[in-house]
């Protein structure tokens, strides 16, 4: 890819901002490029990054999924409380959670694909439903983590130690899972017919149907995939935190959607890339994690998140507008 083409991509600018931001933090605090800070960042990137891959696929297909934190919380809470001690191996917990997530995702998928309602309102309703089931029927108190998952939470890939301060952080194996999920997402989107179908449905549903894509099937797949992944991520989160907290994922949906859009994933569908979603997530995580290093009081965290969303999406919206206008002029000149 030539450099000129590269500069036309949103991902390029996000990466640029990311690097500049890192350098600013390093210049102000001198603590950025230390092994423990980098490991800490990767650690807090793990969960949002996995969510971003699922959400990005939904967004590319022209929908939006606001219910994945609810699905993740409910499936995680169910397997961790109801199946506590049932298995001696962590894998069945993941499988059951994924199956539950898949079923919940299928409900979303069916309603969105069959009735063509706005996905956002459907998934908001579903989200309320699942959170209600969890808090009202299963209860919403913290619960000790079952042993196999606890053991998994203790496993680490590497340890980053700051040579000056002596602080160290561990990178859990879950980061490896996240990398695998990212690769799966990339593979589906770029190397399979299904992936082409996802882009086609997001770009123009009617055209995709004419071209022979099964629009209903693709939409169903997207939401089922997102749901199953949410179940998996929910268990990952519990095992990473080493405790079962049903409420600390709720509200993440908006940050994840914003991160995807920052990374150039279009909210109307048809456009976006895995690398963009990851970069957007990295930027959001970096901003909320580095305020302390920059010397900004934590009460300002939310204001900064809001500003990042508005500025980031504003820039791409204005770009889109000017692009459309130039296109318009070119056509009318003929």
């Amino acid at each position, binding site marked *: 890819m030539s450099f000129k083409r590269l500069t036309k991509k949103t991902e390029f600018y996000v990466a640029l901002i990311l690097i500049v931001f890192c350098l600013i933090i390093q210049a102000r605090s001198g603590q950025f490029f230390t092994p423990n800070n980098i490991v800490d960042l990767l650690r807090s990137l793990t969960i949002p990054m996995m969510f971003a891959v699922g959400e990005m696929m939904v967004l590319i297909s022209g929908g939006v999924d606001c219910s994945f934190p609810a699905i993740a919380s409910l499936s995680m809470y169910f397997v961790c409380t109801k199946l506590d001690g049932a298995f001696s191996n962590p894998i069945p917990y993941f499988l059951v959670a994924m199956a539950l997530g898949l079923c919940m995702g299928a409900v979303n998928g069916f309603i969105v694909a069959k009735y063509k*309602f706005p996905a*956002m309102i459907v998934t908001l*309703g579903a989200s*309320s439903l699942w*959170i209600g089931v969890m808090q*009202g029927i299963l209860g919403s108190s913290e619960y000790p983590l079952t042993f196999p998952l606890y053991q998994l939470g203790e496993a680490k890939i590497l340890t980053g130690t700051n040579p000056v301060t002596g602080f160290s952080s561990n990178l859990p194996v879950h980061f490896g899972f996240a990398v695998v999920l990212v690769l799966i997402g990339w593979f589906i989107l770029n190397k399979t017919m299904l992936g082409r179908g996802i882009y086609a449905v997001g770009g123009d549903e009617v055209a995709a149907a004419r071209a022979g894509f099964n629009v209903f099937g693709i939409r169903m797949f997207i939401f089922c995939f997102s749901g199953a992944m949410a179940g998996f991520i929910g268990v990952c989160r519990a095992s990473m935190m080493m405790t079962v907290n049903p409420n600390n994922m709720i509200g993440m949906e908006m940050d994840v959607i914003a991160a995807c859009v920052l990374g150039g994933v279009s909210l109307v569908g048809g456009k976006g890339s895995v690398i963009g979603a990851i970069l957007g997530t990295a930027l959001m995580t970096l901003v909320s994690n580095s305020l302390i290093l920059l010397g900004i009081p934590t009460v300002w965290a*939310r*204001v900064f998140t809001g500003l990042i969303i508005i500025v980031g999406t*504003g820039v791409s*919206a204005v770009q889109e507008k000017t692009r459309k206008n130039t296109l318009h002029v070119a056509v009318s000149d003929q």
Partner: protein
Amino acid sequence: MSKETTAKKPLEMILDNSSARMVALFVVVFIACSLLQGKNFLSPDNFLAMFRQFPEYGLLAIGIGMALIIGGIDLSAVYLANLSSIVAGLFVLRFYHGDGEGGTGIVLASFVVALLIGAIGGILNGVLISGLGIPAMLATLGTQSLFWGFGVVLTGGSTLSGFPKVLGNMINMKFGLFPITIVIFAAAAVITAIIVQKTKLGREMKMYGTNNRATVYSGLNNFKIVVCTHMFSGMLAALSGIIMWGRYSSAKADTGATYTMQAILIAVLGGVSPLGGSGSVTGIVLAVLIIQMLSSLLNMYTFIPNACRQIVWGGLLLVVMIVNYYLDQSKKKRH
């Protein structure tokens, strides 16, 4: 042809007209509540309690409903309501030096401040959506964070309290049989209904919601339509903020966080199309009353945990959308 000329059955007429559908649903829910919990439900105390509860989220529902009518959404309304009451609260605390007595003038002035903040926040939403072209969902998601964040910064993350007694007295005042909050709600609903149903702006809103490209080609000012709608919706949010502030005599950055979902449910239940372009304030008001009755009914069964309400709201939203879909389908088939 012969089918159209024959008189329609009464049931079909009710199902075809969305307002009639709402009235019928209202009556059904009312009768069901009376049958299930007659003694508790029909008591004057319960009615007073219901009247006290619904104006705060009812106003939010009308505001969010307007955003839905123009084909957008407003996720920031609840936090704008809180921010307005926080700024008004700080205004009162800054200029009031009594020991709990007096301060009527300052409190009234602070209401104006709150409405002003609501209007500014709404204009910001409108400018981001129409001026910059950010999709409504993301723009209001950003401002949600922003309003919430400013609320946290201004309060330092805690709850504002220590307001003069007159504030609570004013909001909890009764107007004959009705609490003043009902009067505020009714006035706001009537004004909004007139704007949406009778004025040029209301017509333009619906046209914009149906097709915002067509409005440009017919010479309408899209920017003005969106900004006006969101400004008005912001002021309704501020009004709701004032009521919540007065009811609890305290202001906090994250009061009523579940109201966003509930307000969207109410608007959709009230016949506002989630795709934009149609909807009426009368429908929203009826939906508010229906939701309040159901909420009070659920309260009367003390063994049902509070969180189960979320199941009802979420499930109801999905069911209502699906039922409306089939009713519209069969209506299309008949005509």
